[in-house]
């Protein structure tokens, strides 16, 4: 089982979720984050005081999937999240040992979905 973490542009969220749906990946956890990346942020100004390294709003997705679903997940995110402009973000995949469904207590691959 793998734990997929993706950082995307906030305004691509709907599209990415749609694509995931298409590929039968229904379960997702979403967090609002800020990020510093290649993308040059705009320096904010408040009463003539320039804010240094302004962090940009991004959206983070977390998706636990069975191994067979890793590639579809990555595809869905890349297709849905790509604008071609710097700032599109990244996808990170880490290995996952266990998965438990709280409601039922059952564990393992079947608990993921």
């Amino acid at each position, binding site marked *: 089982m793998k734990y997929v973490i993706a950082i995307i*542009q906030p*305004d691509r969220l*709907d*599209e990415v979720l749609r694509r995931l749906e298409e590929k039968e990946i229904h379960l997702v956890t979403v967090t*609002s*984050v*800020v990020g510093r990346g290649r993308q040059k942020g*705009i*320096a*904010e*100004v*408040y009463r003539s005081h320039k804010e240094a390294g302004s*962090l940009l*709003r991004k959206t983070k997705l977390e998706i636990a999937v069975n191994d067979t679903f890793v590639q579809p997940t990555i595809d869905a995110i890349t297709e849905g999240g790509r*604008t071609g*402009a710097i700032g599109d973000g990244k996808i990170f995949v880490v290995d996952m040992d266990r998965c438990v469904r709280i409601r039922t207590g059952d564990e393992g691959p079947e608990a993921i979905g």
Partner: protein
Amino acid sequence: MADAPAGAAPAPAGVAINSGDTAWILISAALVMLMTPGLAFFYGGLVRRKNVLSVLMQCMTAICIVSIQWVLFGYSLAFGPDKWGGLIGGLDWVGLSGVGAAPMAPYVDTVPHSAFMIYQMMFAVITPALIIGACAERMKFSAFCIFTLLWSTLVYDPLAHWVWGAGGFLGLNGGWGALDFAGGTVVHISAGMTALAAVIVMGKRQGHPTSISPPHNLPLGVLGAGLLWFGWFGFNAGSALHADSLAVGAFIATHVAAAVAGLTWALLDWMFHKKPTTLGMITGAVGGLVAVTPGAGFVTPMGAIFIGLGAGLFPWLAVTFLKNRLGYDDTLDAFGVHGLGGIWGALATGLVACAAANPAVNRNGLFYGPGGAEQLMTQFKAVCVAVVWSFVMGLILFKVVDLMVGLRVNQHEERVGLDLTQHKEVGYTVID
């Protein structure tokens, strides 16, 4: 410095300034001034987080630009001594010269002329601000500034003159006799129709309609609606220009129409969407305030209830069906609420205006028997003039500004948000 004393030397002997009326006009002016920040929150709460400041900034900017325009020449164009048979006011009062402490017929008889001027200024300020609702989340700030100045001068000032100015060809001061107590035609129809022009010229926001996220801060929107409701008492009851029973009648009609319209919208949501929504209720209430504006001083409480019912129904229909049918993107329904609400109100005034509510009404509305048809027709004609004028002029001015500096921000700026790209600020910190 050669300039005009505003609110200057005590009124000439013989002319009595009434302190009660003056207090009422001043507080009313303050209330109407508060409506523009109120509108800013009403609109600002409904847009996305990344655009909240752009809406607030545009509203505050409208206050600044139009206030200065009004002092320099706007007031003179709208209310100055008539030129060209009711088409426009002259330049006699440019820089407010001659706008002093003495009352000025036919506008005010018991308060300083300058009080009338500042009170009217607040109306001129909020009208272009209403249009922001249609352009929100995609309009360039520079374009907004230019447009606001042009529109106030070329659309609002003439229209105000036609309806309220001495000698204006539409109004009661020697015109067709169209009834517009507090600005249904001048303020709401004009702003609403220009809003329609805006959505046509500017087109949709990216992602409309499927991927636009919901109001980012509804409590802020409710605050805005609350301040608008509060300020509207100054808008409508203040338009009596005296603290008398007419002001009281307008005050009552205003409140009742808002309450009825708010409840109506909530009930429609309840029926059609299973639940009554908060946004629906405040939207309905604002619609009610809009619709009762032209008739506030001419109708009874029962008349106000009638106006409120339509004010809840028609904008609701527009937003629910018309909008999707036509597929236009009126971000905050400036056309649906102010345009249609204003038109309904102006026509409804022709139905329920009655001398019982205000002896100044010399032709009762249709529901009050004979003569009504005539008044209704007058209302209809005035509405047509206002609709055509503000829609066509709106189209032209938007095109002009588009050619000058471009109306819309580019795709990337729209994606990142107007706050950051137009003002180098963000509304709320995420990490702090």
